[in-house]
């Protein structure tokens, strides 16, 4: 019995040291990378097993000849009347068919809610949460792997990460207070920068965050930076490498305390989204910043909501009206190791979910700054930046507004569809009526 405790003690101690080191000196030791590579090998093994089983159960007869057909779908950007044959004038009862089919297709899968659900993985990553295909019963060996993985994640990694986190937050808070003591000026900014990056890195260790930063020569030193938004962790990820001031919704509770601490040290902008006045204040403050070269860069997420990282949704134009130079940043998480997307209702559940994943792996690309063209509207500029970010991160560029997550689409869009359909009928009808009336005249 005693030996068991000793062994456990040593194991826990060892893992604690490893994680602590990975939180502080990981770049030197490359610990996190070894871990990731090991996990990848494990997943590949699991996948082979799964494929063997799947092939036998899915007797698929050959697909029909027309698998290349284009599914009718409603576009909200350029509404098009579906199924209208230009040669056949007037209304025909089969005009409804494609609308019905488009509706059914959207019931099966639609292009909005899809992006608010966690990304589907090409292979199973041994987490029960991504298990919708009953992977457990594939093979005994895989089940054992899963159980071991489960134990490791919940009993070993989670408590240790929790310890690191509980160490990290007060540390961070303390650092911010210390920095706040100093008078505003260059030294304060320098100290702030160094400490914040260190603290964030420490906390990131509690998530086993492995972030690779590309094109660091483009990392912004001032001005406005925009990035796509997947989770609250985005800010943490970016802050482990470069210092930013944050803009965000005021929170209560733990996050609130944290935010206030941050504000001691530097000029963040926290606001209340539902308050109009507050919002316009933000705009004012942003304008000020654009013109002050000394202040650190400010980080903005123009989508306004968290999206599941396979696509980039519509950028709100506000930021793009204020600034003419934007530094785009693309963040792409590798969901195989742990999904950073926040879909849980409670923040606590989300944090637990993240801390019991294998790791959070992501790539960050700093893109060269983009300038608004003289005649370009804010919306066009926003779309241009969005397209660049989407392309860099390998994500789909969508025009849907992220707020559709919570609100129903505007009536105007329905009316637009109706208008398009009517247009095709009406034109034909006026022609027919003209023909009829000329016929009448002749008679």
């Amino acid at each position, binding site marked *: 019995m005693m030996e068991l405790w000793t062994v456990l003690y040593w194991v826990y101690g060892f893992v604690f040291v490893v994680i602590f080191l990975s939180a502080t000196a990981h770049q030197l030791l490359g610990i996190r990378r070894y871990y990731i590579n090991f996990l990848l090998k494990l997943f590949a093994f699991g996948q082979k097993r799964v494929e063997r089983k*799947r092939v036998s*159960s*899915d007797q*698929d*007869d050959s697909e*029909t*000849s*027309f*698998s290349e*057909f284009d*599914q*009718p*779908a*409603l576009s*909200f950007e350029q509404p098009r009347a579906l*199924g209208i044959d230009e040669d056949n004038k*007037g*209304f025909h*009862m*089969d*005009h*409804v*068919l*494609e*609308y*019905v*089919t*488009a*509706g*059914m*297709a*959207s*019931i*099966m*899968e*639609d*292009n*909005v*809610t899809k992006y608010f*659900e*966690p990304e*589907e993985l090409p292979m199973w990553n041994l987490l029960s949460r*991504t298990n*919708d*295909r*009953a992977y457990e019963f594939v093979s005994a060996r895989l089940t054992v792997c899963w159980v071991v993985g489960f134990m490791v994640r919940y009993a070993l990694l989670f408590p240790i990460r929790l310890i690191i986190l509980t160490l990290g937050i007060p540390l961070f808070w303390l650092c911010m207070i210390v920095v706040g003591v100093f008078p505003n000026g260059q030294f304060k900014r320098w100290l702030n920068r160094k400490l914040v990056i260190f603290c964030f890195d420490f906390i990131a260790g509690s998530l086993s965050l492995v972030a690779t930063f590309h094109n660091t020569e483009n990392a912004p030193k001032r001005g406005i930076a925009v990035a796509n938004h997947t989770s609250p962790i985005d800010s943490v990820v970016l802050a482990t490498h470069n210092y930013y001031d944050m803009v965000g919704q005021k929170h209560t509770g733990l996050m609130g305390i944290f935010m206030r601490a941050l504000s001691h040290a530097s000029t963040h902008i926290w606001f209340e989204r539902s308050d109009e006045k507050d919002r316009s204040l933000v705009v004012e403050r942003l304008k000020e910043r654009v013109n002050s070269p000394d202040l650190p860069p400010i980080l903005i997420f123009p989508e306004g909501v968290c999206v599941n990282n396979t696509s980039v949704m519509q950028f709100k134009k506000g930021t793009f009206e204020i600034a003419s130079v934007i530094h785009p940043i693309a963040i792409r998480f590798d969901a195989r190791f742990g999904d950073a997307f926040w*879909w849980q209702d409670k923040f606590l559940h989300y944090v637990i979910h993240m801390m019991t994943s294998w790791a959070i792996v992501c790539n960050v690309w700093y893109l060269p700054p983009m300038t608004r063209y003289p005649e370009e509207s804010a919306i066009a500029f926003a779309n241009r930046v969005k397209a660049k970010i989407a392309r860099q991160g390998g994500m789909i560029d969508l025009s*849907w507004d992220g707020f*559709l997550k919570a609100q*129903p*689409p505007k009536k105007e869009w*329905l*009316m637009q569809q*109706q*208008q398009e*359909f*009517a247009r095709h*009928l*009406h034109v034909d*009808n006026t022609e027919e009526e003209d023909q009829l009336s000329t016929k009448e005249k002749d008679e």
Partner: protein
Amino acid sequence: MGNKSSLMLQEQDIRDIQSETGFLPSQIERLYSRFTSLDKGDNGTLSREDFLRIPELAINPLGDRIVHAFFKESEDDHPLNPLPKPSEDDHVNFRQFVRVLAHFRPIKRTQDNKLNAREEKLHFAFKMYDLDDDERISREELLAVLHMMVGENISDDQLNSIAERTILEADKDGDQMISFEEFCCALERTDVEQKMSIKFLK
């Protein structure tokens, strides 16, 4: 997908649905995943609101009609259909959900097509018009659909004449209404298979 509720579909259920609809087990599982993610109340059924929460459906002019099709369980006597007939007014369960979607499966030459044969698809389209289920499309019913499709963009008079013309062209037995046979005749040259099929993902 499927993160919120575990797979509660039994093997037997999957097999039943497969024989009834022709969907593959993997397609059924995926549809179940979709069903549960649409089911915000987590009570195993979908309400109208659940459907209309899908933005692409909410902007579809026929959105309401399409949702209605799920709630109006058809009463055709299918030899292989042991389901209780009319669905409860406000909720759709998974079996009903899949049955309706099954009409849109592509037609497979090598298979026995129960729910997605051309005639079945046409009948489904017919029911989009035939609201009172009397197997006839009246002028009012046609007008109702036209109105949904064009909104305020065409005057009532013009819609009336369109409706009359359509019935005139299709009506063979002179009863001023369109029966299912007349409907099929009118759509003879339509590629129903292409216009009413969806690729279901595995």
